[in-house]
């Protein structure tokens, strides 16, 4: 790659990353509770555990977007 400075992430990819932030930080008053319990665990603990698994899913989408975008830029660079 001959570009001088690495590009910024795309808005769409950033949006994917924003989802876990909102779910974990933004929605605190909504999920900080004991009931309903999930498999015996208090809701807040279960919520965070769920997002440990959901976050990689969001980021996989972000990766697809970024990879596709980079492939585009490479093609344009070659022509």
């Amino acid at each position, binding site marked *: 790659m001959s570009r001088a400075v690495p590009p910024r992430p795309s808005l769409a990819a*950033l949006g994917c990353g924003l989802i876990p932030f909102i779910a974990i930080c933004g929605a605190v008053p909504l999920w900080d509770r004991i009931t309903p319990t999930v*498999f*015996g665990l208090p809701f807040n603990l279960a919520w965070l555990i769920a997002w440990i698994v959901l976050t990689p899913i969001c980021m996989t989408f972000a990766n697809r977007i970024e990879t596709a975008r980079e492939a585009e830029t490479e093609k344009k660079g070659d022509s």
Partner: protein
Amino acid sequence: MTPSTIALSVIGGIVGLGSLLGFLAGARRQMNLEQWTVGARGFGTVLLWLLMAGESFTTFSLLGASGWAFSRGAPALYILAYLTLGFVLSFYILPPIWELGRRHGLQTLPDFFQRRYGSRTLTALVALIGVISIVPYLQLQITGLGIIVGVASFDGIARTAAMSIGCVLVSAFVFAGGIRAVAWISVLKDFLLVFVVIFVGIAIPVMHFGGIGKMFDAVIAAKPAHFVMPGSTPNLGHGWFISSVLLSTFGFYMWPHQLGACYTARSRETIRRNAIMMPLYTLSLPFVFFIGFAAILMLPELKNGDLSFLMVARDSFPPWFLGVVGGAGALTAMVPAAVLLLSAAALFTKNFFRPLFAPHLTDDQVARGAKWIVVAISLTSLGFAVFSSSTLVSLLLMGYAGVTQFFPGVIFGLFWPRATTTGVTSGLVTGAGLVAFFVLTGRDPFLGLNAGFIALLANFLVAVVVSLATPAQRNGFEPED
């Protein structure tokens, strides 16, 4: 043989074996997903997960997290939150950092600052703040070692003596030529640790309560307020939670010793894939929380939460198993401690002392001086550990408050060419100054928010305003014309 002798001997055996094999081995190999994938043909997905989960464990996650689960309750959940979000952030900032690091030969965070902003003063400041922030992190590991030895000796060895022993061991590790861990010894430690955590995390609730769900029923019934923020604290509410999570998320990769680790990756794609997968390794952490919560009913007299994991193990299992738990915990403390010590010493001598005060020193002299700095820093950390009663988690939060102040400089350095040296320096000084003020006057949390986070906001604001007020400058990453 007394129980204490058995437990301590097992710990001694594990640590001794680990150290011996470590010293006999070759060069240190930084473990990351890539290398394990390459070397791990035939390892199933589960085994690989066990491995990486173990690598990401530290004394903080083992003793500190269970400690806060026991003593603070719901606020301890911030740990699960920031570990997940930290990896999200790394997806965006590590690939450009990696690319720039490769192109310009950058090894550490001060190198990054030096290249981008071209100011020796700013770089030295970054190094100094880095060293100061490492001290509480180091203090945490030493305190953890003290706890392990203390509990395993059935309170036979006094805390101060135990911590001093730990400190000497870590320094010896470092002096014997740095850390050289054989691949499979790391494997052994990782498997041991994760196995211990998951086993104890399931066995204790089953043995004492009849199941994890039943354990929660019992504990929640006994202390319902403990499980919703602010838990058993007067001031760690939602505002504190969000600000502490953000602080730790932004500071995640700002530790000076961490940048070097990402340079072993082969490509941007590898780094991104790492960033995506790594949250899954924190799935072992909830088991640590289970033990801290179980301890509420099992150890009602306990004052110091950081002891809860080991005390629960001591009360429920034979001494040799306590030794296994303690031994794994000890290795988990000693290796990061050695890395931290080495980084702090290198930062101090190469990026602070030599550029500012003694530019004529040769690399050899620097290396020799660094050994004395190792002693100084470890004694300082030991001193703080002996006289401080901060919990392990509080110590890490202090360290984070410091290193997160580098975040504006890094994020602007990557994505905002208009940021100037004066701007970033002013921001950094503001942020660090505020952190020092808040910490020294005991004002954390401040107005219900994490004080380090407030300092970070001020840092950003000042950096932006001053950057716009000073003339634009050349971005050090751009090629010279």
